[in-house]
């Protein structure tokens, strides 16, 4: 009878092997899926036991802190309220996490990826997270919201040299302490707007940096030129005659820039748009789900290839056609021109500090790409300063500091007179983009430029 007993034991080994296999499946290989399962509340409860790091503005003002609950649990509180809800976001048992709270969840919950952090994790989970110092300025943020008021719109201000985000405002905003009713759509990073004439700065970059044009190049400002088979008009059907490129930007002459882009061709335009960061998710330290790329969008809401046959390059060059951009993208365009042609990655967080006050990480300014030569950038900067000095953007002019800029008035409904109003601009230190969506009447120069000016002033310009 010993042979069947041995075989019986072999069967038991197989059965126990199945148990070991199942255990390793649930604990190791399939554990990720189980932790992501929406019915799994353990993960959330465990995070409640952690005292999340504090999020601060650039001047130290507390934007997100904790309130103690019973049983050594903590709940988030947001003293700055609606003013910072879009960049900071929230963390909620029901609605999950968004914004900086999501992107920096690992440091905020004390998870570190370095070897020492991994060693510490073996000794048990830490229950206090690391603090964040953001680059955001409360004054600029306030100026932006005061400027936009209760109209739908957005403002993004970037430090020219580092790409640090000084303001990231979008309306409507929401109360982060009440995530259940929060309307979290962020017009600054998710809003897709026709850029109007602000896009002429991109066209001008392509024109100057390709070496085919100079600021003094003579071009025809004639009204009603045929672009892609259809006559194109200037604002107010004005006929400018023979002018130079600087004047064409100062007065935002549509027919000039459309013709320039047709001359340059789709490939050159696509090359410079890509260098500026169009057609890609912005490289900001912010959740990808809350940012959209800028570019030409097809009828089903999908990005078109920049060289697609459906693109009317002349009308795209003046911010029309199917071109849709985010305020963050246009702020980056202004920052690049101001920074001698070097595009920087936008940064929301400048420092990660542990609970004892030691700096753990300082995400350094990160160069994204050189978009154009220093000379091209300087020449374009001069042209844009002229816009504020004597062109459409005079409302952004500041006392004692020269401002460069470009206005945009994108016509949404010509019969009803509804426009989306833009201003992008910069000083030596700060670049800014402001947009107000779907306004009855008004121009970029009269509505958006004063908002940008107020934000620049709040930042000490």
């Amino acid at each position: 009878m010993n042979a069947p007993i041995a075989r019986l034991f072999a069967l038991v080994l197989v059965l126990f092997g199945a148990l070991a296999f199942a255990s390793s499946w649930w604990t190791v290989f399939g554990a990720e899926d189980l932790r992501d399962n929406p019915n799994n509340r353990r993960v959330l409860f465990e995070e409640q036991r952690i005292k999340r790091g504090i999020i601060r503005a650039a001047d130290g003002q507390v934007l997100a802190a904790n309130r103690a609950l019973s049983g050594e649990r903590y709940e988030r509180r947001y003293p700055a309220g609606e003013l910072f809800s879009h960049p900071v976001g929230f963390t909620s048992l029901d609605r999950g996490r968004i914004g900086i709270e999501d992107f920096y969840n690992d440091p905020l919950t004390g998870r570190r990826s370095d070897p020492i952090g991994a060693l510490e994790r073996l000794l048990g989970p830490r229950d206090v997270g690391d603090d964040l110092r953001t680059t955001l300025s409360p004054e600029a943020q306030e100026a932006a919201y005061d400027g936009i008021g209760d109209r739908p719109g957005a403002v993004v201000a970037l430090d020219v040299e580092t790409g640090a985000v000084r303001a990231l405002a979008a309306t409507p905003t929401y109360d982060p302490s009440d995530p259940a009713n929060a309307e979290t759509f962020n017009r600054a990073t998710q809003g897709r707007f026709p850029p109007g004439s602000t896009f002429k700065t991109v066209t001008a970059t392509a024109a100057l940096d390709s070496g085919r044009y100079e600021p003094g190049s003579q071009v025809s400002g004639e009204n009603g030129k045929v672009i892609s088979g259809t006559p194109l008009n200037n604002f107010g059907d004005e006929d400018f005659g023979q002018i130079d490129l600087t004047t064409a930007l100062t007065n935002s002459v549509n027919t000039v820039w459309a013709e320039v882009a047709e001359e340059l061709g789709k490939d050159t335009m696509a090359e410079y748009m890509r260098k500026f960061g169009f057609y890609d998710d912005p490289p900001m330290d912010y959740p990808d789900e809350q940012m959209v790329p800028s570019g030409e969008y097809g009828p089903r809401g999908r990005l078109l290839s920049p060289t697609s046959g459906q693109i009317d390059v002349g009308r795209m060059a003046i911010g029309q056609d199917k071109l849709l951009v985010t305020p963050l993208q246009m702020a980056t365009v202004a920052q690049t021109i101001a920074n001698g042609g070097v595009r920087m990655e936008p940064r929301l967080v400048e420092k990660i500090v542990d609970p004892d006050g030691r700096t753990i990480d300082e995400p350094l300014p990160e160069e994204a790409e050189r978009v154009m030569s220093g000379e091209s950038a300087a020449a374009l900067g001069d042209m844009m300063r002229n816009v504020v000095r004597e062109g459409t953007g005079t409302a952004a002019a500041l006392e004692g500091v020269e401002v460069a800029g470009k206005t945009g008035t994108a016509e949404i409904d010509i019969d009803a007179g509804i426009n989306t109003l833009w201003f992008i601009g910069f000083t030596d230190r700060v670049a800014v983009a402001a947009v107000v969506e779907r306004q009855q009447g008004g121009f970029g120069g009269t509505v958006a430029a004063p908002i940008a000016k107020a934000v620049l002033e709040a930042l000490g310009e």
Partner: protein
Amino acid sequence: MSARNRELMALVPASLLLTAGFAAIFIQESEVLSDISLTYGAWFLGLCFAGHLFLRFTLPHADPYMFPLVAVLACFGLVVIYRIDEDLARQQATWFVAGLLLFALTILLLRDLRVLERYRYTIALAGLVLLFLPRVPGIGQQVNGAYLGVGIGPISFQPAEFGKIAIIVFLAAYLRDTRQVLVQGSRRVLFVTIPPLKHFGPLLVVWGAAMLMLVFIRDLGSSLMYFGGFLALLYVATNRLSFVTIGMAMFAVGAWFFASTVSHVEERVRIWRDPFDPAWVEREGYQIAQSLFAQADGGLFGTGLGASLLRSPDGTSLIPAPHTDLIYAVITSELGLVGACGLILVYMLLVERGFRTAMLASDSFSKLLAAGLSAVFALQVFVIVGGVTKVIPLTGVTLPFVSYGGSSILANFVLLALLLLVSDRARRPGGAIGRRGLR
């Protein structure tokens, strides 16, 4: 080194495990727990030592590893139960003392195992009565739809734990007599060996009983355990795979039939197939879903003893029945895959010692008894751990020696006593094995 000295040495790891476990929990929850907890360890070790001394005098030649392996399991269980609930651990320790006494009593009363053979039909009847006791009105208890408990006044116990031993004893005695007839009297019909009906009759009764259990006890797991033990014994006795195949086919048909007609069984199977279905994940599927979530928390090394989340902040249980059915999920959560596999390994070693005892035994009854008890023990581990890890539908049996529960501890100590009795006889010098120099 003599068998008993090896047993004494093997108790050392058990004591280390116990001390380390209690110390870990004590450090983790020092604010909540009293330092009396540390003395539990000392008491427990004293009991193990007493058990060892008892074996030294009564069964000097018995397998030296079984008792220490059981001590490891019991220590492990006590530590985990202590971590779940201090009061339950105190009661479990009491049951452990009672279990040791019953263990000693069994060994003293059954010095000659042939007594069991003589009373086989009485034992079979007792076993069947025990199995159906939970359905007797007035004393039967229904838990989660299954009838597994009996309550008389303040005392409640799970007769099925004892029933399994009675059934195995009966089958071992019955098959010892009939195995020759079963093999020789069978005819081959269409490549299938059919045993003579006359001798197979009582075995059909066992099959019928297993099926009835599905209906009356409504528990797929325990009927799988009994019927699996029956098939294992039948196979060992006859060495005919065809008998087992027929048996399994019959069980499968029966299980399928009842799984689709008895609503409780059908529900268990449905939940098992997709525990996360929104229709029941927060209700009937809660247990298995939470079990898996807890295990996922464990990872490779676990969260540490005492560190796993048993309750949500508002007090609802995140691991239902953590001290009985789902104790394996608690262990995996806190000690990780490493701890869980270590536990399975200990069970495997214990089962191996059991089967080895069966192989060493010289008479058929002892062989069948040891093989059957080992098989049913292994199956019980498989049914509950398999249920908790979603290998099979989850049903409520205890994890032997680890789960909280008096009946489970007592019954399994009887099982251990029977195995050691067989072992002592088989390994006695001067017996057939001793002469060949095997130990």
